[in-house]
């Protein structure tokens, strides 16, 4: 045995001496390729099998019916307020209010959202959690900001000239025939510039999104860490039939 090892050592030594020297290596060439992941590739079966139960669970939860939409709900069916916008703003008011009340003892007075934040229609028929993902794919949570009456006035002015049906709830804005603000009512009462109001909205808008500059006047910001999408899902679970229509919360007189 020892003889064998000895032989081996001699053999290696000899070969190292006799062969050409193996020097250090250096980088000689770099090549690159962008490889598309497309249908030309087969699927790794083990991976596909591993994903399957997750996929089926997601599908089952997302596709299970939570509510019913008796008609198409869209953000395009009104000039100043729309069925989809009203539904979204109403959902925020109904779902965020009890949470905010239990955490702070205070009441949410109104809701403002952005028209652009509604990413899909709700088709007539069954409504599922998937619907909520389609309408609200972003991870935005509900924030409640405190603003004084003058800032609310600015908010209303912003909405009156924006040319878009930004969703509101808890508030009524009436524009005169020339487009100027005729009246603002919050919780059924005229806007009081001497008091403070609590506005529920998206944390995205509070942090400067969609140029809603009036939110810079926010005195306090309370993030509920409650996703708008989850508020929608919770609401869909509670109601049987979605009631959403264009109404008189934001109108322009003829």
């Amino acid at each position, binding site marked *: 045995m020892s003889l064998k090892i000895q032989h081996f050592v001699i*053999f*290696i030594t000899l*070969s*190292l001496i*006799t*062969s*050409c020297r*193996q*020097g*250090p*290596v*250096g*980088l*000689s*060439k*770099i*090549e*690159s*390729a*962008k*490889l*598309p*992941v*497309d*249908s030309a*590739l*087969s*699927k*790794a*079966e*083990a*991976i*596909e099998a*591993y*994903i399957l139960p*997750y*996929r089926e*669970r*997601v599908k089952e*939860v*997302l596709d299970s019916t939570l509510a019913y939409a008796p008609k198409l709900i869209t953000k395009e069916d009104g000039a100043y307020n729309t069925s989809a916008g009203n539904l979204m703003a109403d959902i925020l008011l109904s779902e965020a209010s009890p949470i905010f009340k239990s955490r702070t003892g205070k009441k949410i007075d109104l809701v403002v959202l952005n028209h652009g934040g509604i990413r899909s229609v709700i088709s007539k028929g069954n409504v599922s959690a998937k619907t909520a*993902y389609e309408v609200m794919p972003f*991870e935005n949570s509900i924030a409640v900001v405190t603003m004084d009456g003058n800032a609310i006035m600015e908010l209303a002015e912003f909405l009156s000239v924006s040319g878009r049906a930004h969703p509101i709830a808890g508030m009524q804005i009436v524009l005169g025939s020339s487009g100027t603000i005729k009246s603002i009512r919050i919780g059924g009462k005229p806007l009081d510039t001497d008091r403070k109001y609590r506005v529920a909205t998206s*944390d995205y808008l509070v942090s400067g999104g969609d140029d809603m500059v009036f939110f810079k006047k926010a005195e306090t910001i309370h*993030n509920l*860490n409650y996703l708008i999408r989850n508020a929608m899902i919770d609401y869909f679970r509670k109601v049987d039939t979605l009631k959403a229509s264009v109404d008189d919360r934001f109108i322009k007189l003829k």
Partner: protein
Amino acid sequence: MKRRNFIKNTTAATALTGLGGLSLGSCSVGNEKHITILHTNDVHSHIDAFPKDHSLYPNLGGLARRAALVDSIRKENPNTLLFDAGDYFQGTPYFNFYGGELEFKLMSMLNYDAATIGNHDFDNGVDGLYAQLPHANFDLLCANYDFKNTVMDGHVQRSKVFILDGLKIGVYGIGIELKGLVNKELYKETRYMYPYALAQDAEKQLKVYEKCDVIICLSHLGYDYESETKPNDLTLAKKTEYTDLIIGGHTHTFLDKPTIVKNKSDKEVLVNQVGCFGINLGRIDFYFDDLANLSSNGVSIKV
């Protein structure tokens, strides 16, 4: 872990084969070596391929397909490493349902070797990222985030050295500024540090002290911006000295081929990024030869 052993064994086997080659006195084989780097970025929980009727990416992507592709390349060259440049989380209900568990489990099944951390990887908070670590059988690398006062402390390395076929591949990570991108309540005490100097420290460590043959940066800074002052990969490349390849992310930039940038010492650096959502897999091949055989023109780059 299994694959680690496999690579070690392969390395040993290759070394023996090398000696065998020597003993036959064959010089023509030389000392050529070949390392393949595969990479993804901004996969954003896109585990399934896009639907066939998708307007932008019909029937593209899909993790099971990527797995098959990676597998075939590993068979072709066992000296292959697979990296991700961050934002593996957030983008499909898989993340909302499982918090990143499935993403990490599948990346482990594909034998990812390392990844850096993107801003969206904080979307369930620094705690949410920590909670998924048991499912990640690969290292998280970031040289410019300080996790000292967070649960992630001790779970992220600045860099790592991989040894393949006797070559040392040094890899470090660079992350983007979190302020303004991620809610502070999510990233908590994670401290972002201005990236360029820390990238230089990391590459120096890998080159001068660890004597790496190739140095790769996994960056989530973004390819470039209108504002030149915002840290980005092209500027990072210019400011480095030893980095050979920057694998980028964040800006979802679909590059047809890597961009070549001259670094501080006038050497060429590759900056690559393959879009997003697992639609492409990036591949960079590094070939080595005896120093004696190298042309005086330096490295030949064919991209």
